[in-house]
């Protein structure tokens, strides 16, 4: 077929105006995510509670202290009540055995239990503080939570110091009480030793006194000396005095009996005080360790908090970079597609989508620094919040950009000219109309617009362009965010391409040099197959 007769050639063009919905959706979704990271990383002075004002996990410390203390105290109470029934000589031994029993109770095993109790309590308390820190992170940002944790750690350190000083005071007190106990013991021993009176000697003296009285009575009777005489009276007085002197140890014993009771009570009290002091000291020492454990645990929480801050800062930087890149490419479109994007529209769309963004849930997720953040899910939710972008009609935006019908048509005319050329027939191919020997290519314009039946722009374009030597079709767009014009030119000949002469000249020259070698496909010369 001669080249000039071949006209199954076509060309096309595509121009249009489009809201860069996908780009804007991504950009606004990134903005929302960035806003979340900035919210959670904002720096505020923490407004959190003091350590003492935070909730306690339970009353284990009080209960335990009361339980152990009352048990120890009860043992001393019992022996104090039984003091009267205990022989004085056995009292010290009994007190020592009670002391040994209480010491055993507050010994290693019990102290280990106290230690475990305080460790558990420290961890429970740390959980409470972690919740509080998460709450602060949500409400005031992660840096505020970090600062608050630091303040709580300081408070723990101070409390630890205070307790250390209290423990040292306990040691002084214990030493003092120990000295007191020793003193009471010595007194007790002395008291006991002073009460050792020889009752036989008293009896022997009374017997001798009684013998003397009987002998003096016999002498008086024999000598008939009346008892009322001066001699008799003197003798009676003498015997009375001797009797008093002989009974003196008995009186002393009566007095010592009362003194022993008092000393026993004092001794038991000294034992009890020292025992309870030991218990209190052990408990206080463990309480100091509790603050140390709590501080260590808080340190780990703070470390997690700081890691989360670092992670979010990294994420923020990445989002800022991404957002910047997205912003810079918002207007990037294929060469013949005009972006429909007003500056104010971005703000409007962001506010519209922002209402759908689950900010509080996001902040909650990000602030919970013990849990991994599912960024992919957040990205997905962000994109869903701005999915409405794909439903915004290009026509609406075009009208907002070009408010008057004249301006709108002026813009659309520029699109049409880009699609079909100035002289209706040149798409993405330059034609030489003079080389067409009177034949004109067929030109068709297809306008793709959303809702063409109700579109005022579609009606205006049809009214202006239809029946003007160019076939025109208005078709419903697959994407409402775009108005697209397809230019189709067909029915021209190869020779009507601009610069075809150059092509022919080059062909002749190369063919002269290479002959058939220039053809990409050769057919057998005889028209049949070469067997």
């Amino acid at each position: 077929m001669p080249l000039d007769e071949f006209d199954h050639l076509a060309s096309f063009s595509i121009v249009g105006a489009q809201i860069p919905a996908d780009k804007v959706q991504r950009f606004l979704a990134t903005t929302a995510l960035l806003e979340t990271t900035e919210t959670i990383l904002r720096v505020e002075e923490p407004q959190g509670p003091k350590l003492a004002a935070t909730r306690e996990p339970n009353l284990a410390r009080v209960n335990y202290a009361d339980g152990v203390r009352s048990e120890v105290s009860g043992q001393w109470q019992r022996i104090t009540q039984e003091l009267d029934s205990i022989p004085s000589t056995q009292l010290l031994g009994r007190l020592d055995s009670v002391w040994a029993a209480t010491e055993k109770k507050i010994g290693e095993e019990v102290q280990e239990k106290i230690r475990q109790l305080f460790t558990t309590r420290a961890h429970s308390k740390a959980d409470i503080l972690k919740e509080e820190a998460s709450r602060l992170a949500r409400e005031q940002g992660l840096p505020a939570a970090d600062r608050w944790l630091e303040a709580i750690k300081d408070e723990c350190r101070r409390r630890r110091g205070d307790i250390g000083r209290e423990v040292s005071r306990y040691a002084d007190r214990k030493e003092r009480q120990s000295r007191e106990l020793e003193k009471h013991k010595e007194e007790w021993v002395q008291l006991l030793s002073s009460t050792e009176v020889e009752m036989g000697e008293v009896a022997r003296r009374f017997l001798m006194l009684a013998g003397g009285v009987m002998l003096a009575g016999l002498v008086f009777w024999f000598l008939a000396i009346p008892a009322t005489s001066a001699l008799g009276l003197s003798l009676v007085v003498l015997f009375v005095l001797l009797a008093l002197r002989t009974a003196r140890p008995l009186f002393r014993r009566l007095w010592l009996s009362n003194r022993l009771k008092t000393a026993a009570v004092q001794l038991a009290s000294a034992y009890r005080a020292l025992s309870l002091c030991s218990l209190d000291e052990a408990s206080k020492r463990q309480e100091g360790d509790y603050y140390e454990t709590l501080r260590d645990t808080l340190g780990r929480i703070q470390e997690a908090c700081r890691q989360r801050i670092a992670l979010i800062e990294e994420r923020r930087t990445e989002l800022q970079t991404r957002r910047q890149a997205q912003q810079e490419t918002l207007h990037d479109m294929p060469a013949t597609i005009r972006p429909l994007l007003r500056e104010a529209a971005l703000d409007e769309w962001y506010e519209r989508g922002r209402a759908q963004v689950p900010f509080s849930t996001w902040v909650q997720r990000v602030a919970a620094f013990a849990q991994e953040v599912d960024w992919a899910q957040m990205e997905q939710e962000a994109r869903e919040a701005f999915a409405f972008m794909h439903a915004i009609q290009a026509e609406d935006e075009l009208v907002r950009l070009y408010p008057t019908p004249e301006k709108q048509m002026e813009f659309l005319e520029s699109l049409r000219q880009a699609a079909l050329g100035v002289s209706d027939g040149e798409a993405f191919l330059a034609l030489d109309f003079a080389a067409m020997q009177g034949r004109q290519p067929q030109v068709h314009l297809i306008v793709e617009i959303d809702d063409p039946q109700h579109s005022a722009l579609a009606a205006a374009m049809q009214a202006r362009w239809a029946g003007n030597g160019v076939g025109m079709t208005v078709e419903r767009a697959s994407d409402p965010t775009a108005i697209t014009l397809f230019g189709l030119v067909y029915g021209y000949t190869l020779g009507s391409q601009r610069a075809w002469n150059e092509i022919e000249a080059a062909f002749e020259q190369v063919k002269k040099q290479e002959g058939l070698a220039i053809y990409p496909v050769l057919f057998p010369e005889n028209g049949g197959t070469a067997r």
Partner: protein
Amino acid sequence: MSPFNPLNGQAHAAPQEVLPRFVLPSAYVGLGGYAKAVFPYLDAFLQQHYGGERLPCLPRVLFDFDPAPAEVSLDGTVYSIESYFKRLPKKVLLDYYRKLRRKKTAEVEALRCFAGYVRLEDVRATDAPGLNLFMQGANLAWRLVWQQYVEPELKRVLQGLHPDPQTRSALERQGIRVSPRSTIWVIAGGGSTTGPSGLIPALCTLKARKPPQTNLFAIVFTPPCYRDKTTHHRRKGQAIFRATMEQLLAIFGGQEFDQPYSTDGYRISLHEEPFDQLFLVDGTMGGGLRELPNEELAQLVALFLSKLAVGPVGERILGTIMGNLNPDVQGNNQEEEKHAA
């Protein structure tokens, strides 16, 4: 969003019905470097439209002797041709070329089946990537790799073109209406080597094997697109383009095409044109007032192809405009004759 009347600022009287998504099954066959520029954008536009999904009824294959990859990054996503890029091996061509130069008769004799189809004395090849404007080298190279590398891929894309009922149902469940029509697009550069030398065999094979209700179009980038090439390259490219058109029209005029060569191939005798329309683009706008860089032109070609596949406008163009232009196009009226060796 409420419909909006731009002229009076009021909402439209009639609410707009929801437009179901749509796909016009289309196979895309790319030949050479220009197609390599188009396809990543085509991937991007199609995947963006279908939410990242690659529909089976939009099969693609790209052939090139130059193994260089191609990709574009759009909105943070990289679109690459790697999954369907078929790197055609030059080694077999180079081996034959060396034998031809050494005149090793026994081995060269095996090439005699190509005589009449390839000017063996003009076969040239270099180790550099691509076919380097040596048309007989390209002519031989395509024939050497045809059965093993090219034909199976062409069959594959044609199989994917018409989705089976299960795939069709699955697409419809996703709200995607599948058009009963389909198209095949062959994209090639007209002034280099791989595109023109592969264009005619590819068109003939596709025309012969295409299913009914399928239109076959070719998009050829004409030599003016070679703006960044040397004068020699441009001149050679112009000659190659002209020679390609001549041979293409020879088939259009009744010439028969043996595929891939006679002794172990088959003859394609087309009683109609080997394509429905040949789209030529030179990357100018407004009658040459503006020249589009190749990258932008490739992007626009990809946009055009994607718009035709994803919206009703594709059916409109096929059914109304192209149908009127080519009323004889009624599907599978090709004739295929199998030749025994």
